[in-house]
């Protein structure tokens, strides 16, 4: 029901700037599906290179396991760290809830401290392990969080402007997202302050089709103020592995499910 209402509002808003035949609601849902819900489940190895304004680099390497409860809906996720080796076997566990007023559940396992800790939901726009990606960039910002309007349509892309429904919970005033018509993937997101200052950019650098799913295999976030950026590369992505539900439980934190990780 809620989705319907939101969708109606979105469509209404979109009707003003013209281009009446684009169904915005469908467009953003499709984009969300393409970006975060490919297949029923998925696995990928990821490597982040965090580069600061002075060009100094830090590396993070991890494996992500994901299983959808429902497309455009709830998801379960596990992130297992490999490198640097001093954080090896650190695990994040996430139960993502798509509804606007339901917070995600997040847990953390730190092997060297022999500690499982729940992370209070609160703010999702904190750094993901020191990178320029936010936690929310990795798990996916639910489309229900923003109101979209169509800015521009080109031969290959739609450009949508998104404004947060709860401006207090985010650091941006709005963002413009370019959605590739061919793949439905968001390929460029520019974040702006209320002053109009363009301060942050997320881009899909390379896209490959894996098992029929267009997949972003290189993406980059740039902090335009400092010039620092993080480059994230994915490899070995696979979909529809049949990951069991009980994999996404507290047990996997202390005992990494080796057979699903390689």
């Amino acid at each position, binding site marked *: 029901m809620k989705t319907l209402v939101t969708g109606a509002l979105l469509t209404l808003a979109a009707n003003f700037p013209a281009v009446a035949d684009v169904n915005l609601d469908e467009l953003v849902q499709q984009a969300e599906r393409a970006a975060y819900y490919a297949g029923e489940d998925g696995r990928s190895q990821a490597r982040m290179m965090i580069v600061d304004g002075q060009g100094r680099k830090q590396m993070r390497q991890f494996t992500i396991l994901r299983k959808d409860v429902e497309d455009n809906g709830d998801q379960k996720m596990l992130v297992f760290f490999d490198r640097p080796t001093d954080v090896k076997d650190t695990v994040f566990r996430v139960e993502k809830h798509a509804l606007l007023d339901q917070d995600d559940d997040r847990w953390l396992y730190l092997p060297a401290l022999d500690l499982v800790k729940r992370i209070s939901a609160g703010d999702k726009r904190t750094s993901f392990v020191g990178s320029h990606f936010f936690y929310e960039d990795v798990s996916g910002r639910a489309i229900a969080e923003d109101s979209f309007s169509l800015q521009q349509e080109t031969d290959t892309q739609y450009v949508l402007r998104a404004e947060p429904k709860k401006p207090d919970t985010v650091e941006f005033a709005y963002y413009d997202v370019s959605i590739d018509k061919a793949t439905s993937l968001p390929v460029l997101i520019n974040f702006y302050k209320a002053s109009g200052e363009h301060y942050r950019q997320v881009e899909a650098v390379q896209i490959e089709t894996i098992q029929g799913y267009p997949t972003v295999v290189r993406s980059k976030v740039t902090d335009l103020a*400092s010039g620092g950026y993080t480059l994230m590369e994915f490899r070995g992505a696979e979909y529809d592995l049949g990951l069991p539900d009980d994999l996404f439980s507290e047990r996997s934190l202390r005992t990494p499910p080796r057979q699903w990780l390689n």
Partner: protein
Amino acid sequence: MTRFSAAMVVLCTQKPKTIYLVLLVLTLLIGSQIPRIQIDTDPENMLDASHPARVLHNQTKQQFSMHDAIVVGVVSDHPQGVYNALTLNDVHSLTETILDIDGVVASDVMALSTVDNIDQAAPGTIRFEWMMKTPPSSDEQALEIRDKVERLPLLYDTLTSQSGKAAAIYVPIVDKNESYRIAETIRASTNGFTHGDNWYITGLPVAEDQFGFEMFVQMGISAPLAGLTIFILLFVFFRNVPLIIAPMVVAMATVIITMGALIGLGFTVHIMSSMIAIFLMPIAVVDSVHILSEFSDRYKPGQNLHDVVNEVIGHLFTPMLYTSVTSSVGFYSLMLTPIPPVQIFGAFVGTGILLAFLITVTFIPAYLARMSDSSLEKLQAVLHGDGDKQSRIARVARGLGTIANRFQSSLLSVFAIVFAISVWGITQIQINDNPVRWFKSDHEIRVADRVLNHHFAGTYDAYIVIKDRSDVPSAQALLSDTPPQGLSDWVVETQQSLQNLSATEQLQQLIIAIDDKLFSDVTEQQSAWLEKTLNTADSALNSAKTFQSPQVLNTIQELQAHLQASGLVGKSNSLADVVKVVNRELRSGQPNDYVLPNSSAAVAQTLLQYQSSHRPQDLWHFVTPDYRSTLIWLQLTSGDNQDMTHVVQLVSDYVEANPLPQGLSVDWAGKAYLNVVWQDNMVAGMLDSLLSAFVIVFIMMVLLFRSVVFGVLAMLPLTITITFIYGLIGIVGKDYDMPIAVLSALTLGLSVDFAIHFLERTRAIYQQTGDLKQTLQAMFGEPATAISRNALVIALGFTPLLFAPLVPYITVGVFLASIMAISALVTLLVLPAVMSKARRWVFR
């Protein structure tokens, strides 16, 4: 020399217009550079740009991503201190304003609303959240913020005070030359707050900016005022405006040409060089006063004007040349001090004095030769009109003569005792300085400094930089094992791609390269070799991260505890504190978990959490990403060099008694430390320049008088005077600071002038009379009057500095005025006594 001077005077008196023209053109041409003035107020420039301490300081700033910061403080009288809704709303809205100001490093702004709180949302749940995302809507909510801040040692006593009465916002800025604009924007906001809180804006960039402004005030007010004072004095002496226009022209031309040359040559105007005008003006007129005194004495109506001028100049040329050279030697000796602004000051004032001499001996004769008969008659009327009515200054001089001649023995004893006490006083001198104290005590910067340092752990920053200087295994070495078949090309390629990286980045990239290679098609043999190398690289990279080791962090923590216990440091912050806070919140949130974890991996995992906040970059203010350099940030409540020196000593003693782990080195950075370095340089440098000036002036005196005895006599009054002044400084406990240090050498060159004129004239009169008693009687006529006049010109010429807005200027004013007055007095009182007692050696 006399023949040369005579020829020159003839030339000048015959072609006065040419002289005027040359002087005018030179003054206009070089003076036209003055509008290009560049003010330099950065205390850092007291050290040469390539000085190791300064290089390390800037390197540290860069490595740890630090910027100069404006500090905004608020003090509230509310019963809950700043933890009330109104004040925190103001803090919040001001922070929003600040974040939007161009030139502010927004990501590094430290304020209650821009930092993270880490705490327990519930048992077993850690929470990262903005400390004050939205301002509190009630005083109860405001108190919750207090409870949060008090749990975070990195913020407590830095963002809010222990008393709870004060809060601060630290505003790092990209370019400190923008600080004025930024501070004004902030001030405009704080002026709009109406809740009775007191707002303060300070920080080094603001202080420097303010300083530059006050320097202009000084140059714009004190220098013209000095000109006016000298003009009035000259009028009192000579009562003849056309006559005293001449020395004023000399002074103006000298100042304009010297400043124009300084600016035209591309030097910045620093606090020292901003005083050039006020130094040159009185010194420049001194020679003219001698000429005018003697000219007005000798010229009688009906005489040939040119002849009198020739005679006067011929008579005074040598002593004037020597006094000018000795004065410039005093200033030139400052070039031995390894402090660039002091060197530039010395060089330009020294040259300016020689220039003044040159202008005096060319322009004054030209000017005198063109004086109208009516002006000359008026001069006569004033000076010789009434033989009985001596000028007041002449009466004083005669009075001094009576004392000097009658109480010779007592005078000598008194001076001997004063000298002895002064020598003891010098041993009591306290060396100390603090650029913030260059502002007067009621200046808003000083007020803000006092208030904020009263409430907080300190606004003066110093950094202990600890580096691991031991070697990290190179990727080259790790790849040196013979690779299995088919990998050699890959090894060569990899080695080449790693060449220009730092050691730890080499390891990191090597790991990535191997990892990628393993992902491609490799044989089993290749895979085994790669895995082995990968493991070695992984563990090499891990063990290279020195400051992730709990043992090393514990060393740092103990050093911090030692510093805190000493009471000399307001607060210290380090990577160890970051780790302990996160560790505590990861565990129970209770004080007993405020400890370092027990392994490097645990530290790494703790820090991985710290980086999962809104401000991951904060970590790099404490440690470099390779974990091989770290810093301990010290907050000091005093910027006095003495206090900083104690802290440096404390650390060095501690490190000596408790050696750091192998390979670690300790260095210092931070402005408070740099001040200590340049002050040490200055003290050592000043001793060099004082001694060298003393030796050079002494040799010049021996040459001038062609007598060692007269050389010693010439040095006697200034030795007594300088010893007395510095003894006094030691005894009254005035800090020996930058202006006082600088003045020691240059006063030597200035105060010897009186002795030169006194001895020169004594010898001349003695040759005529052959009788010492008669000679000394005569000396307290015109010669003593001229000396007293000059002493007054110089001493009073510096007094406008007393009205200057900055303390160093005032110190210079008081100091120079008294040293000039005292050395003239000592010259007149001591030399007759010594010459009488030692007559057998003096007049052989």
